[in-house]
């Protein structure tokens, strides 16, 4: 084997060459691995039938190189391997000449980008818990707590306005922990009257009441070692609060018509769109129950306080609903983004999702555009209580949070914080002053300032 061949065999990029009739003349080891086609099968066959790339028909880099004589570098697309898997690749091509300058054929090198894409996906996962996606700093703080929360059996309280995704977050906690293979049982406590809620949660024995023809286990028991999600916990009656407190304290439930307590192994996650602390103050919610469920509290900010999440949410929801409705709506007109980001979204992510679903049904192209916007979002008709103010204050809030975070990360050392933020320290100082960010005394310039928060 000559040295050129040895080099070609040792590299991790796929390389093949073709003759002027597009028949493969050589195929290296990496090309075999990436495509799943052996050299013996590849050589002599049409390159498009071996390489099977998304570029073959309309954007073949090799064809362009052969017709223009120019090299093409890093054109991206995908190939479909023999198992039907799409493999993202980047290709580079060049023309091969003999010593007399006559075209011998072409050479194509290609790189498997799967690992890079997988790393990009992992990076995206930083902004994701279950189906909940967010890049806002407030949500990032919540996301950072999830691994620890998910792996502990602690009771969790999720607070957030309606439609912010409390149940989605609860499911995210459930699926991130060791209970993921056990049931996730959601109960809306606000939707049921007391007696029905009691039989639903605790179960009953045959003959406990008229119509109780057989034994039935309650949701706490049905959840097994999984999770019980009690939504709208702030809306349960005082009598029910006492019963729930007992479950949390004793870790048992007593079905209606029975004296035998049944152990509860499920983890309990509660959620409410009301301010429980305020309800405790006003005497509407039991303080002891509040302390029992308020062990770990996660607050989901409303969508209007994190408009920076709207573009990403739109992408995710468009993908989800175009797949569900089997249509090709791929994107949205960037011109509608300021309107969507300026709108107050009183129904939060649920309202945004409804908008996307509706837009996909009515869109006439593969783009959600201005004409797909419902009346309430159109300018002059929607709830734009100070659109400019909202956007401006959102921008200022985000900037403030980022600066504070960087300062905290660097023990309030301004030079290090400025470096982390990618700005000059005088710019940082100006923004700190303009945004009224309080700095501690002594600040990070003192010698004993510690790094990290």
């Amino acid at each position, binding site marked *: 084997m000559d040295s050129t061949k040895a080099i070609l065999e040792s590299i991790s990029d796929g390389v093949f060459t073709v003759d002027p009739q597009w028949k493969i003349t050589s195929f290296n080891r990496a090309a075999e691995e990436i*495509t*799943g086609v052996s050299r013996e099968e590849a050589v002599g066959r049409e390159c*498009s039938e071996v*390489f*099977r790339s998304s570029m073959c*028909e309309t954007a073949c880099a090799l064809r362009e190189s052969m017709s223009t004589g120019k090299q093409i570098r890093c054109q991206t697309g995908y190939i479909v391997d023999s198992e039907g*898997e799409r*493999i993202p690749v980047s290709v580079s091509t060049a023309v091969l000449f003999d010593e007399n300058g006559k075209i011998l054929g072409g050479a194509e090198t290609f790189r*498997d980008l799967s690992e890079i894409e997988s790393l990009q996906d992992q990076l995206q996962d930083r902004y994701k818990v279950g189906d909940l996606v967010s890049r806002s700093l407030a949500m990032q703080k919540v996301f950072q707590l999830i691994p620890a929360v998910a792996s502990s059996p602690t009771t969790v309280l999720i607070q957030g306005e309606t439609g912010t995704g409390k149940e989605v977050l609860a499911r995210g906690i459930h699926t991130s922990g060791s209970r993921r293979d056990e049931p996730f049982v959601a109960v809306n406590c606000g939707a049921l009257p007391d007696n029905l809620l009691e039989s639903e949660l605790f179960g009953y024995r045959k003959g406990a009441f008229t119509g109780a023809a057989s034994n039935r286990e309650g949701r706490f028991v049905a959840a097994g070692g999984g999770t019980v999600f009690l939504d709208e916990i702030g809306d349960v009656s005082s009598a029910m609060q006492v019963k729930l407190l007992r479950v949390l304290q004793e870790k048992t439930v007593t079905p209606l018509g029975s004296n035998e307590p049944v152990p509860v192994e499920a983890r309990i996650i509660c959620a409410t769109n009301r301010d429980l602390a305020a309800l405790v103050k006003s005497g509407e919610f039991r303080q002891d129950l509040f302390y029992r469920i308020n062990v770990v509290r996660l607050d989901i900010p409303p969508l209007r306080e994190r408009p920076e999440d709207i573009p990403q949410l739109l992408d995710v929801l468009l993908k989800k609903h175009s797949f569900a409705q089997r249509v090709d709506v791929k994107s949205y007109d960037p011109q509608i983004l300021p309107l969507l980001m300026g709108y107050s979204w009183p129904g939060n992510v649920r309202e945004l999702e409804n908008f996307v679903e509706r837009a996909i049904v009515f869109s006439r192209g*593969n783009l959600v555009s201005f004409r797909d916007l419902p009346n309430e979002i159109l300018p002059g008709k929607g709830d734009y209580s100070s659109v400019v103010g909202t956007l401006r204050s959102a921008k200022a809030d985000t900037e403030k949070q980022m600066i504070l975070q960087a300062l905290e990360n660097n023990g309030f050392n301004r030079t290090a914080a400025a470096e982390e933020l990618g700005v000059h320290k005088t710019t940082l100082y100006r923004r700190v002053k303009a945004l009224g960010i309080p700095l501690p005394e002594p600040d990070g310039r003192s010698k004993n300032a510690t790094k990290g928060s």
Partner: protein
Amino acid sequence: MRLAITVWNGRIAPVFDVAGTLRLVEMDEGRVTADNLLSLPPGGGVFSRVSVLTGQRIDVLVCGAVSRPVHRMLTDSGIQVHSFVSGEAKEVLEAFLHGSFDEKAYFMPGCGVGRNRQGRRRGAGLSRRGRNRSFGPGWKEV
């Protein structure tokens, strides 16, 4: 029977997911009763691509490589799929007309060994390098 073949330069198009042209042939007792060319929507729009075929009430599709989710959508739509087929489109059509189409004779390179399900054949036992095998929402290995 309504047969569709993705064509490119007179041959079966290499990748169904991005193929531009469909040859649509209607056959009745071994005779061609209609033969037309149809353009498929450009780009990677899978749903509209599959809906063209269902809209044309295609019974059988002969095509080149096809990614798994798309293959599943096609078969879920009731279309019989002969995928990873290569060669002259005319020759494949003739074989179909005469009832002598032998898929094995037209397999694309690397697709003929150890078939494990319709339209999917493992390669020649070549190793793969730690690829993340996910096939999008809803895909389940058969």
